[in-house]
């Protein structure tokens, strides 16, 4: 288990100092596939580098299984990294690359040879042991980088956007391969990415980061269906954010009304909002279209246009208050018609901001 406690990382001094991480606390459970997700510059790579030991925290503490490791140099941490551009040693064969960590740990030669063999099998590169790394394709180099980082059996494997240099098809293949490797080895994977679909597909847990802070931690389903903030709702998938009126709370649920409609019981990210206008997240695929005059209509708007994308159509609708929203439907209504929008109230989420 990795326990990140109140970690702050500043680059530079004084007025020009850049705050990369600000008071970040996070628990990464043992044996999980944990993803740090966020746009570039959000601090996710800095956090990874702090765990690896390439940077030292300005404040705070990082514990691994209870031991404080935040100030150890990288070669004294039982943590290995898969680098974004692989950083394979160009002057060594595939086998020596994989054995390098164990060689530095002064393990017996027979053990190193056996582990190299095992790792080559694990990443399906058995025939390439004697190759130079510059004779390999991108996908193969990627697998060597993985094998090299896994060979010393670290407690934690850090992956810094390892799939970003691969083309789409290879990337999909590597996603499932990474999942398989994580399950087979049982090692904690900490995966950094800016690709939300990758994060949703692979992770046990996701920490969404922005501006040097953790916005929300949860399972992919939590993050997708119950975003806490506008940022998370916006960043994960396509989301409509509409304004509703908060009437009050009924236990854990918020009472919401759109326009003059009926009151709905909706999940909420915060139980301390003051009654009045609040932001509600509404996923495009949960919307159904009904007659504007029908009782079922929660919101009313005018169809602007529709785009066919194969499995359905994406309709763009302008609400009465001017908000533009997207809805995925099987059969779009013609542009200019007034339509009612309905949605299962369980799929709505009141945001904290």
């Amino acid at each position, binding site marked *: 288990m990795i326990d990140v406690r109140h970690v702050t990382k500043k680059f530079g001094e004084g007025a020009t100092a850049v705050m990369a991480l600000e008071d970040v606390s996070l628990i990464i459970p043992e044996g999980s596939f944990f993803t740090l997700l966020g746009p570039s510059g959000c601090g996710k790579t800095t956090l990874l580098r702090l765990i*690896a030991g390439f940077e030292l925290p300005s404040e705070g503490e990082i514990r691994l299984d209870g031991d404080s490791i935040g100030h150890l*140099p990288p070669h004294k941490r039982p943590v290995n990294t898969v680098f974004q551009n692989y950083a394979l040693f160009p002057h060594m064969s595939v086998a020596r690359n994989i054995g390098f960590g164990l060689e530095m740990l002064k393990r017996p030669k027979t053990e190193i040879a056996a582990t190299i063999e095992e790792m080559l099998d694990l990443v399906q590169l058995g025939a390439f042991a004697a190759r130079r790394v510059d004779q390999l394709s991108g996908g193969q180099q990627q697998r060597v980088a993985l094998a090299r980082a896994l060979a010393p059996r670290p407690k934690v494997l850090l992956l810094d956007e390892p799939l970003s240099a691969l083309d789409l098809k290879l990337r999909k293949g590597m996603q499932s391969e990474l999942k398989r490797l994580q399950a087979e080895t049982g090692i904690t994977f900490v995966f950094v990415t800016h690709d939300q679909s990758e994060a949703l597909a692979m992770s046990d847990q996701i920490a969404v980061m922005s501006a040097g802070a953790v916005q929300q931690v949860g399972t992919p389903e939590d993050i997708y269906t119950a975003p806490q903030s506008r940022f998370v709702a916006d960043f994960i998938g396509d989301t409509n954010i509409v304004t509703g009126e908060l009437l009050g709370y009924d236990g854990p649920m918020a009472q919401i009304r759109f326009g003059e409609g009926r009151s709905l019981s909706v999940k909420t990210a915060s139980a301390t909002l003051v009654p009045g206008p609040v932001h509600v997240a509404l996923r495009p695929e949960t919307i159904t279209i009904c007659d504007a005059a029908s009782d079922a209509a929660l919101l009313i708007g005018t169809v602007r246009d529709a785009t066919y994308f194969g499995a359905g159509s994406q309709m763009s609708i302008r609400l009465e208050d001017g908000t533009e929203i997207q809805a995925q439907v099987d059969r779009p209504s013609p542009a200019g018609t007034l339509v009612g929008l309905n949605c299962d109230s369980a799929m709505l989420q009141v945001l904290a901001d």
Partner: protein
Amino acid sequence: MADIVQQPATGSQNLQQAVQARAKAKRRVRLFLLLPALGIIGIFGLAPLSIALIYSFLEPGTYGGVEWSFSTDAYVQFLFERDIFDDTLGFNSAYLQIFGRSFGLAILTMCGTLMLGFPVAYFIAARPPEQRNAWLFAITLPFWTNLLIRTYSMLLIVRDEGFINLALMKLGVIGAPMQMLYTDGAVLAGLVYSYLPFMILPIYASLEKFDFALLEAGHDLYASRIQVFRHIIIPISRPGIVAGCALVLIPALGAYITPELLGGGKKLMIGNLIAMQFGSGRNWPFGSAAALILMAVVLIALLLSLRAGAEKENRHG
């Protein structure tokens, strides 16, 4: 029927002839284009060497130049001394000592430039790309001044009334000036100073494309700083180190101006010995022989080191 079958046969024959003719013409053009390069190598490389080789087997002329009669005296003289009275040969190590001193100084020069040059090359390679040219310019700047002038200024620094002695005496570290000029140390310092850029530039070239993420990868895989240096930085910059060592060692062996000025002509190196034979010594054959012996030794050493390097490569491959 037969005609129709014949037709393509003659066609392909014609084609073959045409292809052959073209290839022949191409070869001729290629040879013609090679002429300038071959000419330069012949006139400036092979011809002088041949002259030196021929002269080394002739007898010295009384006022310089050579007498056209075959003799191996020049080579014999290198190791033996002919007794004036009974004409017997006795072993003479004087010239071997000069060779020994030259190799010693040249190897020390190589080590010195490597120790000083490697960190500098690494430093420049680690700068942001837009700053590197300025640093390289600074390294090559001394070349804009004549080597003779640079060596003279070195002389002014190390002589008895020079900057170092004056400063040390002012500070009270020493009472009387230290003898630094005309010592092997002065010659070594001068050689290191003169040849440093020849070490820095090739090492820089081998580190220019160095991916500094490899250092992090090494640290991450449990290598300490020293291990990263030994297992990652050194092997990757090895081509530059080898080239730099060769570029420093070979000219340092034949250095002339530096030992002449800073060694005061007392601490002879091969270059001075050879120059002396063509000048005041008036023994051109011996000068030629000394130059060729030096070249042979260097060539053999280079071949041996290349073979050792190749074997090492194979074992690691």
